[in-house]
């Protein structure tokens, strides 16, 4: 009944174990593992510019408290691979001219001073990678395009999507900038799901505040969150890991191994035959209806920001940025919603008295003609907008701001898309 406790065979008497330690697996294997770990850790201290990485990934490697990027950085890069091409492990077919990614002394994306010496009069915030311009050169990002349109300087206050952001952060930024802008543009991306709960203190925060008082607890909490974010970001970016992933993806090429990554990306063809990629999760989101309570929660959050900024003497306009497939879904033969989410959100925001520029009807209306002319508002193989898309929406935003405060903005007039 009883099974033997061990079935490990005894060593053969005629084959004595090698005498030298370096010849024994029990000596070699842990050292090999340790060497790998040291290599992984060591490579993390090598400049990321040595590796094929996007400029913003390099700029995000390290960032000080309250900043999205490393301050005073300038990266000239000719590397571009669309997110969808990378995600789907598909050969990139889209390229672009070299870009420059500069950050200012506060660690925000630096917008070239369109109007020398003048303090920023407009603040563009939120919108994350769209606002600080993933894949775009300094002179192409929304705040710069807007500055050209309006004839005033515009500050790019966009942070990383995982960074915390409260009105107090805006206060701090403005104090450091020494600026008193009268206007802010809140960029709301279609998939952004932030609600008031995002910033609501959790049970542990309430306990901390009760024990230490808000003035003591808040900076501690901010620093703890920041430290966690810095460490997590540092751990995520491993050159050795990137090398291994690329190596494995290179053999998942539908010849040696099936390219399973393809399942995450939908491939379409443009009229001129070029590939057009979209993430399947984005498509599913665009094609599914957002419930009313979610819609209301998002509108409440944006309205709350409007009120917070109004209390600081800043007027806020919201720019609603549609997802790539909300604009191009019909052209790619995908189903569209009769009453799309951004249009519903626009109505909800208007009922709260928020000024809105809705990019969806504008881009959707113009997309077919632009497509026929071979132009897109977004990158073909990436879900971010391109310089053309930025320029188009910045005109709409500029017109909206001009119409709300004609005395302030000197730029040329364009067409109006503002709803009030």
């Amino acid at each position, binding site marked *: *009944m*009883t*099974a*033997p*406790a*061990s*079935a*490990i*065979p005894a*060593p*053969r008497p005629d*084959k004595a*174990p*090698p005498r*030298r330690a*370096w*010849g*024994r*697996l*029990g000596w*070699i*294997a*842990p050292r*090999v*593992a340790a060497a*790998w*770990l040291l290599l*992984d850790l060591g490579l993390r201290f090598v400049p990321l510019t040595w590796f094929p990485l996007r400029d913003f990934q390099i700029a995000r490697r390290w960032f000080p408290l309250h900043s999205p990027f490393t301050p005073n950085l300038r990266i000239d890069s000719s590397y571009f691979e669309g997110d969808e091409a990378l995600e789907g492990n598909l050969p990139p077919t889209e390229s672009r001219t070299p870009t420059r990614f500069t950050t200012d002394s506060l660690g925000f994306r630096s917008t070239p001073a369109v109007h020398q010496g003048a303090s920023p009069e407009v603040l563009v915030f939120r919108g994350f990678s769209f606002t600080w311009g993933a894949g775009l050169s300094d002179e192409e990002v929304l705040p710069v395009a807007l500055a050209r349109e309006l004839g005033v300087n515009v500050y790019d206050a966009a942070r990383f999507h995982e960074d915390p952001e409260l009105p107090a952060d805006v206060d701090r930024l403005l104090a450091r900038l020494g600026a008193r802008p009268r206007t802010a543009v809140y960029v709301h991306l279609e998939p952004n799901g932030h609600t008031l709960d995002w910033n609501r203190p959790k049970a542990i925060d309430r306990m901390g505040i009760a024990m230490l008082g808000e003035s003591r607890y808040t900076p501690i909490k901010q620093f703890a969150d920041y430290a966690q974010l810095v460490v997590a970001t540092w751990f995520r970016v491993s050159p*050795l*890991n990137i090398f*291994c*992933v*690329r*190596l*494995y*993806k290179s053999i*998942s090429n*539908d*010849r*040696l*191994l*099936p390219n*399973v990554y393809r399942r995450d990306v939908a491939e379409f063809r443009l009229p001129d035959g070029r590939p057009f990629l979209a993430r399947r999760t984005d498509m599913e989101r665009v094609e599914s209806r957002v419930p009313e309570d979610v819609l209301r929660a998002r509108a409440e959050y944006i309205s709350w920001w409007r009120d917070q900024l109004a209390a600081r003497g800043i007027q806020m306009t919201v720019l609603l940025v549609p997802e790539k497939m909300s604009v191009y879904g019909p052209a790619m033969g995908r189903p569209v919603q009769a009453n799309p989410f951004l249009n519903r959100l626009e109505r909800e925001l208007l009922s709260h008295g928020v000024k809105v520029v809705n990019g969806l009807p504008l881009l959707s209306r113009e997309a077919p003609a632009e497509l026929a002319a071979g132009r897109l508002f977004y990158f073909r193989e990436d879900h971010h907008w391109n310089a053309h898309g930025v320029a188009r929406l910045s005109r709409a935003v500029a017109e909206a701001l001009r119409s709300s405060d004609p005395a302030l903005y000197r730029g040329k007039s364009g067409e109006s898309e503002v709803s009030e």
Partner: protein
Amino acid sequence: MLFNSAIFLFAFLPVTYLVFWSLKSKDARYVWLAITGYVFYGYWNPAFCLLMAFSTVVSYTAGLGFLKYGDDPKRRKWLLIIPVTVDLLLLGWFKYVNFGIGIANSFLGWAGAEQLRHLNIILPVGISFYTFHTITYIVDSYRRVITPTRNIFEFAAYVSLFSQLVAGPIVRFRELQEDLDGIDTKDRTEGLDAAWSFFILGMVQKVLLADTVAAIIDPALKDTAALSTAGAWLCMLGYTYQLYFDFAGYSNMAVGLGLMFGMHIPQNFNSPYKALNPSDFWRRWHISLSRCLRDYLYIALGGNRGGESKTYRNLMITMVLGGLWHGAAWTFVIWGAYHGLLLALYRRFSSYWDPLPPLLQRVGMFFLVIVGWTVFRAENMSHAFALLGRMLTPHTGIEPVGAPLLLAAVALCASFAHFGPNSFQMQHRWQPAAAWSLAALFVGCIIRIYGGEKSPFLYFQF
């Protein structure tokens, strides 16, 4: 946490190992092993640590009861029934409730009655394994096969021992008791070469062989109807070796990890694809489960003591429940019944089978095993029939993407599985060149772990 993950290899294992060997006392080592077991388990979902703790306390308390009421058969019976029932209820709730609701809904649908709603239950990883650990402990205590431990730390260390916690082998307390009792007298360097040898061989089996095969056959099996007959066979041959190298790989890694901490975890696979007949196969495949089913179910049902018909009945019940242990799905039930039938047929007709040439027996048995794995792998019975249909009748269609590599991998796996020694037949005393070659393969595994997608062991789901 997975053995084949960076967090395990570069954080959990070194810390666990270094602290364990720096501790000197028995209790400190038990406590440390228990803590690390809970960390290992809780990394997946901390809430389910409570479940494991509950199961541990119930079984430990029952063990104390057996010590206290050694001469009271009535109380001993209750000490057996209550904790085993508690364990089975836990297993039943988490694993089989929705399956039961599905069956009930079939009947309700016939009767035109309102359907029951499925419950939102998450199956805790490894519950089938640690529940069996505790049940075998209780039953062995009842049968006086073991003397229950009074040391809660020792028992907690046994139940939560990370090397065999979530995917076996199902190690009975009696199989580890000697090592646990002498945990403070172990020599760190003893068996270290063999430990790493088992661990790396297991990792190579899992990461380089099983995962490579899986990367090709998983996408292909999603569209069974498109496969040619040759493609379907190639996929199922691939799955046959994937399952073996995945699970045997895990078991070897568990053995290696056990040795690093002075624990001798028993053999779980003994070259099962060299089996000559169904009975031989079950002596070689998932040995720890087969033994449990034999000792705690088949023999408890009467075994072969009640005549031929009762023996067949007991075989079928044991194997159907064994199939169901793997998962709450009809495919597993049918797979279990299929093997029950094979065992019964072999028992009845062994006098015709055994005189056949061994090679013919091996090939025949291997074919029968593949047919069984087809049902086991299928998402449902219609998928199983579709797959068997593609295999057993000529069809034109496509080959899996990556077929040449799959063919090479299958050939390599076949040579190891059918002609090579298994890890327990090896000496694990490598010459330097072989040791460095294994280390190079270890690096290959790490590159694959870093570069590929997460790949849980197949038996995690059971």
